[in-house]
């Protein structure tokens, strides 16, 4: 086997492909070699020098991040020499660092803190004043705290190699070195600049949006999928006190690498809306009365009995499971018109990792809606098409109808809304308003533009009596046609194959960490 090499790292034998670096080989063996400048998606300049390790027979310590393992090499990451070197580098990194962890946003998720606890000295030996660089507004969302910077240059390399938009550079030399923007042109207007905050291992690059909003250890981090376009970047919803504080990319080598765009990153405030529909509302003459789920749904089943035909409008922010249930309800009621609306924006690819694009269609589950039989209504602004909402029964799931005016009145005997909010125009005309959760409050899946089905998990407690749409619609279907009620998102997912053959054979638990791609859509049947 000439393609692989075997080496020993801290006594463990590791077999890795030829050319693998010591740092990566060690990671495979479960050994974390401290590193700052190294980032798996960027070039390795080997300049922070914290990853120095000892290789038997090599006089000098070698940087693990750029040294390929040789066959038969014996590597010691914890030898006296390696530990002494690391301790020395830690001391150097800390002498000019302000050690202002109590007021630093990075505190709790800081590479400098972590390795200082593991490797550092108890006391500082610098008797002179620290170097002062100060802070700078880098433009866009990015704030630079120069004194905290350890000059790992990850941000510079991200802008050069991945964003391919060189807007940051190291200026000066020696210990006066600092990161800076070019003259008057900062990071403003860059779609990808937010990533430099993520990859900064210390508190030097900060998000203005997140500045002093929460401490890292108070955040609950929930894996999710970005709802803001049809690319489906894997993200984490970071939550404190049932409020989303920020979104962070979650690595997925098939979808978004380590990155996400700033459009997605900052589009989270709607998840924290306080004007939510919290109880089922049923019309009594001029008024909408709050009631219980059983009263509302029993009443609705009675009102639907004997009625057939109508139209349904859904939102492409609904999960596949929601959309599947909506489709089954539409079929049960013999609806003719099934639509969704989506706003568009310019598409922009990440030049250094062009698989990642901010997609034209700015909602997470457009593909899911299409596959499950909904067609697009309205224009590129995500508005219009409401004239199609007519018939004996009109059902609106998820779409807020923000563009309708208060005089909006569909030609319908019964108007049913299932959604997180009830906007003013809907309030005038709706007969049943049923409170639903957003994707952040439930478990489920989205289908992205390439047909990849990806899971997300609940991060927030839903307000009041809100329930996932699939559950609400599932109970309704049980009342109408005696269909079994799915007990979980997995159950609801399992039912999708009945609606769309593409989903047949897909199991919720088989989607894996990186999602699975649906087969090409079945030919449209006449």
């Amino acid at each position: 086997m000439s393609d692989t090499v075997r080496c020993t790292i801290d006594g463990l034998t590791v077999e890795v492909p030829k050319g693998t670096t010591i740092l990566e080989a060690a990671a495979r063996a479960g050994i974390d070699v401290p590193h700052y400048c190294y980032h798996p998606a960027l070039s390795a300049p080997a300049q922070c020098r914290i990853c120095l390790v000892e290789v038997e027979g090599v006089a000098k310590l070698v940087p693990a991040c750029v040294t390929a393992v040789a066959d038969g090499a014996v590597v010691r990451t914890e030898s006296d020499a390696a530990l002494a070197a690391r301790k020395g580098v830690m001391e150097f990194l800390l002498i000019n660092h302000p050690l202002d962890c109590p007021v630093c946003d990075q505190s709790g998720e800081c590479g400098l803190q972590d390795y200082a606890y593991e490797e550092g000295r108890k006391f500082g030996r610098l008797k002179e004043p620290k170097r002062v660089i100060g802070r700078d507004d880098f433009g866009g969302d990015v704030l630079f705290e120069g004194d905290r910077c350890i000059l790992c240059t990850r941000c510079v390399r991200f802008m050069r190699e991945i964003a391919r938009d060189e807007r940051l550079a190291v200026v000066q030399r020696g210990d006066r070195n600092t990161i800076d923007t070019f003259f008057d042109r900062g990071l403003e207007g860059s779609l990808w600049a937010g990533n430099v905050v993520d990859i900064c291992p210390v508190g030097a690059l900060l998000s203005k949006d997140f500045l002093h909003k929460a401490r890292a250890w108070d955040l609950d981090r929930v894996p999710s999928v970005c709802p803001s376009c049809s690319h489906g970047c894997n993200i984490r919803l970071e939550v404190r006190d049932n409020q989303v504080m920020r979104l962070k990319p979650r690595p997925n080598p098939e979808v978004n690498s380590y990155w996400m765009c700033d459009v997605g990153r900052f589009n989270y405030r709607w998840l924290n809306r306080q004007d939510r529909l919290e109880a089922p509302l049923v019309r009594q003459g001029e008024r909408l009365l709050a009631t219980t789920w059983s009263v509302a749904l029993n009443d609705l089943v009675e009102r639907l009995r004997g009625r057939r035909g109508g139209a349904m409008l859904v939102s492409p922010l609904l999960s596949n499971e929601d959309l599947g249930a909506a489709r089954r309800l539409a079929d049960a009621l013999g609806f003719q018109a099934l639509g969704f609306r989506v706003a568009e924006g310019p598409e922009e690819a990440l030049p250094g990792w062009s698989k990642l694009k901010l997609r034209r269609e700015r909602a997470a589950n457009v593909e899911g809606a299409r596959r499950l039989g909904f067609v697009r209504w309205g224009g590129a602004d995500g508005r219009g098409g409401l004239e199609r909402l007519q018939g004996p029964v009109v059902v609106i799931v998820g779409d807020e109808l923000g563009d309708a005016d208060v005089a909006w009145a569909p030609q319908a005997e019964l108007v049913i809304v299932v959604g997180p909010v009830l906007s003013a125009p809907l309030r005038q005309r709706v007969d049943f308003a049923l409170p639903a959760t957003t994707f952040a409050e439930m478990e489920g899946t989205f289908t992205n533009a390439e047909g990849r089905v990806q899971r997300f998990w609940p991060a927030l407690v839903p307000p009041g009596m809100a329930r996932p749409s699939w559950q609400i619609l599932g109970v309704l279907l049980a009342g109408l046609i005696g269909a079994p009620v799915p007990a979980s998102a997995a159950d609801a997912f399992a039912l999708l194959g009945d609606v769309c053959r593409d989903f047949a054979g897909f199991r919720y638990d088989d989607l894996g960490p990186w999602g699975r791609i649906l087969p090409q859509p079945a030919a449209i049947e006449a």
Partner: protein
Amino acid sequence: MAYPYRHPDEVRLLSEYFGDPEARTLEGWRRRGGYRAWEKALGMDPAQIVEEVKKSGLRGRGGAGFPTGVKWSFMPQKPTKPHYLLCNADESEPGTFKDRELIRWTPHQVLEGCLLGAYAIRAQHCYIYIRGEYMEVAQILARAIEEVYEAGLAGENVLGSGVTVHLTLHLGAGAYICGEETGLMNSLEGRRGEPRVKPPYPAVAGYFGCPTTINNVETLANVPHIVLHGGEWYRQWGTEKSPGTKLFCVSGHVRRPGNYEMPLGYPFRKFVEEVCGGTPSGAPIKAVIPGGSSVPILAAEELDIGMDYESIAAAGSMLGAGSVIVMDARTNLVPPVRRMVEFYAHESCGQCTPCREGTAWAAKILRRIERGEGTEDDLQTLLDVSENMTGRTICVLSDSAAAPIVSSIQKFREDYLAYMRRPTLAGAGA
């Protein structure tokens, strides 16, 4: 024509025409035997030139002392990409001023070496990267390059031989680190002058990713003589492992500072005391830096060695670029060491943590000691900092800054203690 001072023990292979303005012109240089080696080489195979230089045992004069012929032999024999020769004229090491004199007085000697070196490694282009502060010298060299082109000795189809060698002069912008060979390549490519991680070595992927050799000015200036007279001839001077002659730039406490071309292996004490005339004050020698500010300092009692690579290495220092700085017994080593460390702190490119932080920190401690605010603990801190700066970085600038600190504390601890005994203002009751 008395170039500042000449000593009978000198062997003036390179420096024969120092002080002779006529030697600067192409015509004058040709009358003194110039470009005969180049004409001879055009009839030779490049491999023969490499072989001859290997035979001569010529070692790199920039500081590291790596055998030049061996370095050349690392270049691919069958070029698949363009090859480049980079002539390193970024002479910036404190105490070094030999390349300046070589170019100032014998620009054609250097250019002939460049042409021969380029031909030997199958390069069609040689860049001469000259220190930005060397304006006068750069103008002399630029004029010489024009003459060489006009005479058809460089460019396309040199003297009808079919050989192409271009010469381009490039001025640095004032950074010591651009004299480090990979930093020089980065600078020449238009990047930030930061040394690169090796491997890949320049002979594999150097200037713009192409096979590249970087040679010092003095190294290349030796080549015409070796090509003309043969490698064996060159070995008549020097020692077995350090053949030939070497320019030594002497500064500090000597009666006659300046450049001296000595056969390698010449007795060091005799060199300082006789050739350079000893100290002007008459005080005994206290310390000598044998190879530029980046090498460990030798105490006077360590001077009974030969001035060659191996003897100075055996004494725990380095011949370096042959930059001898002499200090007499009245000198306290702390201010010069502080000054040298400040230089490295200023010139560190700052990419590697130990160098960026270590050089600046050491300079701060040394300044504090000099102010009379140091304690003996600081000496231990300095030694620890130096240890953490040594062998831990991409290039050796960091090691260079540590060398004078460590050697001065080890050999001249008293000098530091003298600053610590000095009463502070508070201590004096002020």
